Every structure is written in structure tokens, then in C-alpha cells.
């Protein structure tokens, strides 16, 4: 690798030295920043502005100058419902199905996942033999690609798959798991917990290990009951980490797409269609390509994510200061 990189670095040095002479040492900082800022500007900030203008225009042309201005009509289409609780009463019923699916999914997935991650972290924090091994075992699915995770479980859950064979064997009988709407939804939650739990376990374990030992020793001296120790020491001292984990899990949960798309394709029907898949399908998968609706929906998701990220940054700051 160095054989290629060294000459390359030496070539870059020539213009950099010229710039250094021209600008002086301190203003050279901007030259170091330039590539990164250019990429951020072009692929993060400019898109945010353009996204706004997409959401205010209609038609199926991707070129902005060819798109007629429609004002807030995209947002009206998305939000005109006689009852927000019932997607059937909405013009864009698929959007609201996706919204409700996502809300249910995020609630269940984050709750179950953080619960099990906490339990696992607490058990791993005990005096466990081969802790490193167990930690890696719970962690390794995090590294698998979403498509691989989806295929692994599709293979296990298929009609003549190993799970049904096992259920037949103990006499319960098999199911067509992914054909039934409720089961398919339950399995997407399971799959997502399976794939991501290890990541949060790792963070919570780090949080538990950061709690000083002498606090527990003091509690032991005072003859505090284990339950009391857990509630009055472990939980309060872990709560900053818990908050970080919850917010991170929420941010990722809202954006769930890859593994579910490869696992159920959003089906059966729209039972497992989540909000990012709605955006993808409106903008890129179907014809006509409704970029305006996709952009308007993106904007709504973006607002949720900005709020969550601000909370995360605020917690981080408080953790550092406190």
C-alpha cells in the first residue's frame, strides 16, 4: 500500500508547499479543510436546500427547472386524512400505513432490544468466565450485512425450513411465517433485535464497567439489599448511558430499511412497509417517480431526526460536563 501512497503524497506536497508560501501556515488550514467541506457542502448541505424545493414542486421530472411550483400541495396530499389514526381515511393511505408501522416497529424494537441489551450487559458484567468470548458472540451479528441477515432468517423461516421442522417435531405444526401479516411484522422486529442488540450491549457494558467498584463496596458495608443497590446505584449511574443508547436506537430505528426490504419486501401487503421504504418507492421504484411526495416525506423524517440528534448532542454534552 505504501508503495502507491508515498509517491502520491510526494506529488501532493509540491502544490501544498506553493500554497503554504502563498497563504502562510495558519491559512493553510483552510486548504486542509477544503476537500472535506466541499464534500459536505455538495452532498449534505446543498441536498437539504434542494430537498425543500423538491417538496414544493410537482411532476415526475428530476430536473428542478422542469418542475412546476405547487406550493404546499405535496404536504396537503400527505396529511389529508379524516382521521390520522385510520390510514384508510387518508388520500395517501400508504404513507400513513408506513408511518404507523414505523411507530409500532420503533416502539417494540427499541424497547425489546434495549431491554435485552441491558440484561445481557448486566450478566456480562458479572464475574463471568470467558467474558470476551460471550461478548463477541452477542456482538458479531452487528457486522453482518442487512441482506445477509435477511436471507439467513428467510431460509430458517421458509415453509419447509428448519424452524417449522422443529415445531412439527415437537407437535405444534408449522406456519407460513412471512405470509401472515402479524407474524411477518413480529419477525421483522425479532430480526432487527437479533442483528443490532450486540452494539447496544457493548455500549451498556462499557457504561456498567465505568461505575466505580468502591460505590458497591460502600453499599455492601451499609448492608444495602441487592435490589436496593441495583435501583439506587446501578440504575442512576447508568442512566446517562441508557439515554444515549435509547436515542441512538431511536435514530437508527426510524431509518430502518435495508434488512426489512430484503426480508419481506415490505409485505405481505404493506404490513412491514416502513417510512424510508415509502420514500424509496415513491421516488425511485415506481412509475411515475413522485419526487415531490418523496421529498416532502423525507422532510418530515428529517425533522424527527434533527430533534433526536439535538437531544443526543445535549446528553453527550451534559455527560461530558457532569
Amino acid at each position, binding site marked *: 500500500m505504501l508503495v502507491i501512497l508515498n509517491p502520491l503524497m510526494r506529488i501532493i506536497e509540491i502544490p501544498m508547499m506553493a500554497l503554504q508560501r502563498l497563504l502562510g501556515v495558519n491559512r493553510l488550514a*483552510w486548504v486542509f479543510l477544503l476537500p472535506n467541506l466541499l464534500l459536505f457542502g455538495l*452532498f449534505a448541505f446543498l441536498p437539504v436546500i434542494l430537498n425543500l424545493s423538491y417538496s414544493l414542486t410537482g411532476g415526475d421530472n428530476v430536473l428542478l427547472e422542469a418542475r412546476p411550483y405547487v406550493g404546499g400541495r405535496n404536504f396537503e396530499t400527505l396529511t389529508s386524512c379524516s382521521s390520522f389514526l385510520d390510514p384508510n381515511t387518508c388520500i395517501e393511505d400508504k404513507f400513513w400505513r408506513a408511518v404507523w408501522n414505523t411507530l409500532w416497529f420503533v416502539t417494540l424494537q427499541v424497547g425489546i432490544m434495549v431491554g435485552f441489551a441491558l440484561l445481557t450487559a448486566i450478566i456480562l458484567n458479572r464475574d463471568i468466565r470467558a467474558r470476551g468470548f460471550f461478548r463477541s458472540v452477542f456482538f458479531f451479528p452487528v457486522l453482518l450485512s442487512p441482506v445477509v441477515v435477511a436471507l439467513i432468517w428467510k431460509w430458517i423461516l421458509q415453509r419447509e425450513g428448519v424452524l417449522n421442522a422443529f415445531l412439527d417435531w415437537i407437535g405444534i405444526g408449522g406456519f407460513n411465517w412471512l405470509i401472515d401479516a402479524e407474524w411477518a411484522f413480529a419477525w421483522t422486529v425479532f430480526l432487527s433485535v437479533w442483528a443490532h442488540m450486540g452494539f447496544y450491549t457493548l455500549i451498556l457494558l462499557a457504561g456498567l464497567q465505568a461505575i466505580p467498584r468502591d460505590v458497591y463496596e460502600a453499599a455492601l458495608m451499609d448492608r444495602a439489599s441487592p435490589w436496593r443497590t441495583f435501583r439506587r446505584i446501578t440504575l442512576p449511574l447508568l442512566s446517562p448511558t441508557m439515554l444515549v443508547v435509547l436515542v441512538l436506537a431511536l435514530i437508527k430505528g426510524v431509518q430502518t430499511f435495508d434488512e426489512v426490504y430484503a426480508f419481506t419486501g415490505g409485505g405481505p401487503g404493506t404490513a412491514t412497509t416502513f417510512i424510508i421504504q415509502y420514500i424509496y418507492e415513491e421516488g425511485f421504484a415506481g412509475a411515475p417517480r413522485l419526487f415531490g411526495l418523496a421529498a416532502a416525506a423525507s422532510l418530515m423524517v428529517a425533522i424527527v431526526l434533527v430533534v433526536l440528534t439535538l437531544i443526543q448532542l445535549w446528553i453527550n454534552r451534559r455527560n461530558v460536563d457532569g
Partner: protein
Amino acid sequence: MANLWSMLTATRGKGRWDWTDWVSYSYLFLGVFLMFFPVIWLVLSSFKTEADLQRYPPTFLPYQQETVVVDGFDEPLPLFRMTAGDYEGQTLAQLRRVGLQAQMIDPANPGERLRVSINDREPVQGVALALENYTGLFERFNFLRFFWNSTFITVTATLIMLLVNAMAAFALSKYEFRGRTTVLLLVIGTLMIPQTVVLVPLFLIVSELGMLNSLWGVIIPGAATPTGVFLLRQYMITIPDEILDAARMDKASEWKIFWRIILPLSAPAIAVLAILAIMWRWNDFLWPLIVLTQSENFTLQLALNSFQGELQTDWSSLLAMTVLTLLPIAAVFMFLQKYIATGIASTGGK
């Protein structure tokens, strides 16, 4: 109840095994089963023949019918054990099957052709790996092409990201200049703009740049990450300024200081970021799905996803391809798992 909570809170062993230890270890071993079994099952299944995959209930290990080479026949002949009829107990090789009858020969005495009912026999099976599932991938599909696309994207994007992020981190950690706080705030701002919420305009920009259906369209938009800048900056701040001053005394240019001093000294942080970048890029799905629409540009993930639609009945190829897709990441994990764990814990993911 008190015992349950002592299990949840105890951080030291008490030198003896009580029931809370049993519960803990049971939980952990159940976890090992739940986490490992699906992957082991995938790998074992990927070595089964299509016929073996159809078997219900499935066997744990891959089985294949045994064959025998008999003089005078070009192809190896499948072996059967006779369970009834005139030849009960013998092992015969099948020449051909006609309806409910089969023409068999005794491998030891190939001259004589025997007619038996197919109900009187069962196949002789042994554990064997169906390697043709894997070799078939290279013959029937453009597998190497997908593998190359994924590798090219992962390697190029990781290198560009490391260089660009390291340069920015260097500027933000080792220079005093007006506007530094503003830049830091801008970098924090990009944390709030994940690709998933700007797909439409990103699509326009990439197509205006002529990078649609090109691997560069996947590589470039994600090349700068706020996570990378923060991770590297945090590390570079700890490098003492005196080293830089000494180098400046020796008339080293700033660029030389960057790649001869700062980069080598930041190696641990760069290694962590490189591992994360490799993981993100290799497993990336949504953005490649939008940018790459022609199958010759597909990454492994896209190929795998599109084949699972087309090859519903061809699980043997699909499973083998899945194994090959997870193999590189598994290898990285085995060798570098310590770095991965600390890296992910310190950055809080992407």
C-alpha cells in the same frame, strides 16, 4: 426476589456456584445458540445439493447419494441398498429408471442387468459437501464482477475517506484560525443529515455529475463523514504540539508534517476508522440500490438481493453466495475484533 437482584447486581464471584450463576450461564449459552445457530445452519445448508435442500424434515449435515464408477460406463452410477425383493441386503448401482421399475447392476458383477421395483430400495447416502454450489457461482453468474465492484467501492471509498477526514481533523486540531468554531458546528450539523433523508436531491446531484450507474456515484457522496472527523480530531489533539514545532524548525513543510508525523502517530485511530469504513461500505445497501441500476455494476449486496427475487427455487446458489458475501467481514472480525469493539464503543456507531 432478593436473590434475583443479587444476580443482577453482583459484580464479583463469591467463590461458589449458586443458582444465579446457573441462570447467568444458561442465558449466555442460550444466546450463543441463538446467535450462532442461524449462521452455522446457513453455512451447512450452502453445502447441500438442491435435492438435499428440498428434503423435509432437513438433516443437520449435508448428505449426498453415493455413486460408484463401473467399467464400461462413463458416468458414475448412483448406489441403492435393496430393502426387499430378490436382492435384499445387496448394494446395487442404477443404470436407468423406467416408471416404477429400475434397471440395476451389481458393481461387482457388471455384466448382468437386474430389474427391480423402486419401492424395494433406498439410496445409499453419505456426508458430502456439494462444492458445485460454489463453483457454479463463478460459471453461471457474474460473481467475480460483483465481488470486484464491492471490493473496489470498499477500498477506494475507505482510502478517500481516511485522507479527506484526516486532513480536516488535522486542520481542526492543530491550527488556530478564525472560523474554526463555525467549521466545527458545520461538521456537527452534518450529523443531522443522514443520506436517508436527502435521497431525492442527492440523486439529482449525482446524476448531474454524470455518476449515475457508476461506482464513483456510490463512493464520492459518502466520502466525508462527521464521525470520522470527530474520531480523528479527538485523537490528534493529544499529539503534543512540540513535535510539530521541532519539525517546523527543521524546515519541514506542513504537508510533510501531516503525512510523516501526524498520520503515523494517529495510526490507532485511523485503524479504528478504517475498520468502521470497510464495514459500512461493504454492507451498504440503500444508496447503491438507487445509484446502480444495471446489473453489471451491482455490488454483492445488490446482486444477492436481486437474485433472491429471481432464484426463489434455486436456494443452493443463493445460500452459497450469501456465505461468500459474509466471509470477508467474518475474516476481518476474527483478526481485528478487539479494535472493532473499542472503535464502535468510542464512536457510538455511525
